[in-house]
């Protein structure tokens, strides 16, 4: 038996919105102490990883680990039926072929429940190796979203380079070029700060299309953390306060002829 109740149902809605454009089918893996999702997009260029700690739910019960395979578009359709202030409860029997989603309005005067059919997803268990990153950049998530949106006007490939000077996002395309440089900024409000920690300068190239998908998670938190090292995927992490995170990994573009 699995049961999880979340007063801030909005978070779950936003999470599914944040991954539905990237992955079609994924498993929700539930264990005694957490709920997690890990899936790659269909072209295997990016990976999304969600982690919600049991302690962040109002009630969390999972007798034995289970995997609930779902289609993200269908899940999203059902979650559209939940109000932003609703309490969301997820329920599944151990051998269930459906996931029950219950939406309760704040005044408890409206209770809706839906069943989403589950599916078997053959996911190869892949682990993400631990990496010591050379650069980590923490910035307001809205700022990151804006940069990605702006750069997409000019091209489809973006170079992110982190140096002593700051972090630079560059694009070049048929109509011209664009650069956005962010410097360390110790603003008063933590959410407005830009904090760059760097061991060695790093420069990596990425497809903007995917970075744009990642910014769908902007509403989940005020900050985003980018972690980079040479020749490995960038991690774009949106921490969800006192609850967990959604992390996106994006494989870099590497010039074959170099």
């Amino acid at each position, binding site marked *: 038996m699995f049961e999880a109740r979340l007063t801030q149902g909005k978070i779950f809605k936003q999470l599914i919105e944040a991954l539905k454009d990237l992955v079609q089918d994924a498993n929700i893996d539930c264990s005694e102490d957490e709920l997690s999702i890990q899936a*790659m997009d269909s072209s*295997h260029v990016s990976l999304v990883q969600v982690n919600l700690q049991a302690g962040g739910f109002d009630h969390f019960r999972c007798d034995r680990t289970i995997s609930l395979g779902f289609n993200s578009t269908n899940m999203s359709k059902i979650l559209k039926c939940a109000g932003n202030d609703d309490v969301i409860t997820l329920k599944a029997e151990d051998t269930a072929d459906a996931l029950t989603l219950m939406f309760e309005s704040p005044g408890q005067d409206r209770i809706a429940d839906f069943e989403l059919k589950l599916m078997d997803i053959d996911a190869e268990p892949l*682990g*993400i190796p631990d990496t010591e990153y050379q650069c980590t950049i923490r910035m307001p998530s809205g700022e990151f979203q804006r940069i990605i949106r702006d750069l997409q006007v000019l091209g*489809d490939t973006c170079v992110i380079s982190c140096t002593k000077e700051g972090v630079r996002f560059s694009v070049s395309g048929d109509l011209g070029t664009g650069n956005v440089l962010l410097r360390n900024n110790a603003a008063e409000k933590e959410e407005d700060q830009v904090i760059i920690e760097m061991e060695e300068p790093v420069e990596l190239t990425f*497809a903007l299309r995917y970075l744009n998908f990642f910014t769908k998670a902007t509403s989940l938190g005020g900050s985003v953390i980018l972690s980079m090292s040479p020749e490995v995927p960038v991690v774009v992490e949106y921490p969800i306060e006192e609850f967990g995170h959604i992390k996106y*990994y994006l494989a870099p573009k590497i010039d*074959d*002829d170099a």
Partner: protein
Amino acid sequence: MKRVLSSSKPCSDREEACKRLEQVSSGGRVGQGQTGPMLLSDIPKSCLESKSGVVLGIDEAGRGPVLGPMTYGCAFWSRDEEDLIPKGFTDSKQLDSNTRSSLFSSIQGCPDMGFVLRVLHASEISNNMLRAEPYNLNAQSHNAAMDMIQAVLDAGVKIDTAYIDTVGMPDAYRMKLEREFRGHDITFVVEKKADANYAPCSAASVVAKVSRDSITESWEFSEPDFEPVNGNNYGSGYPSDPKCKAWMEANLTDKVFCYPDFARFSWGPCRQAIKENGVKVTWKAEEEDANGEKEDANQTKMNMFLQSVGPKKNDASQVKKRKRVEFFERSKLRVVARVV
């Protein structure tokens, strides 16, 4: 991306190995269909009965050129017989061609050293890179190396350590190899410039480089009506070589097909020349694929960076593939789940 060669039988003795090597490295295209040949020498007895383990090295030659094949060389021997292995290996690029040739002869003449040669013809490389779903050069290189290791394993040699000159990121490549050959207990050393630091790699680089030079120099064009202007005077085949440049300019005689299949059509200089001097062709279907995004050969995949944690599903050794009718194999006809 799937591997092209599942196995290759070793030669019965050194004489046969040298003869086949001679065949492979002269006079145009050898090999079935699009895939170039792989040659595995006879297996030295000392490698089959090795007490202190077999070491193996892999290196490539001709990655950058716009003309001619890329070759992959592999050399292996038992640590017991280290004394009998010819001395003097260092990075084959630093050796002059005479020294290399004499080292190559000494490899062939050394009964305790086994070798493998895999030739990826220009046509194989460019066909793969220009497929609807590009199969990039790094992946082709990785698979060529894995095919060679597999062939040596299949011949009954227990490999202790494999030294490999890296292609792409050393760590990711090493992890890929460890994943592929899990259970064989091979130590993989994957480094930049491994050919300069490890004797097996260095020997492998001699095999690769000498063969590549020989194939390139003695190339016989398979196109019946093609008579090269300037003969085979294309130098090293590197785009930066003035001889190669001049040859490329002089030989764009066919305005539709542009170059013989000795050229790598997927290379920048080749594409540029075709665009400028060939007949302009518009491919309607090429403009956009289903996602409205063109595949990018430089885009790496996440799989390269991940570690397999659970048991591998569909272990290749357990799934026996039904042999296909040759016609289908050669024409690359296969069942597809979706229509592209």
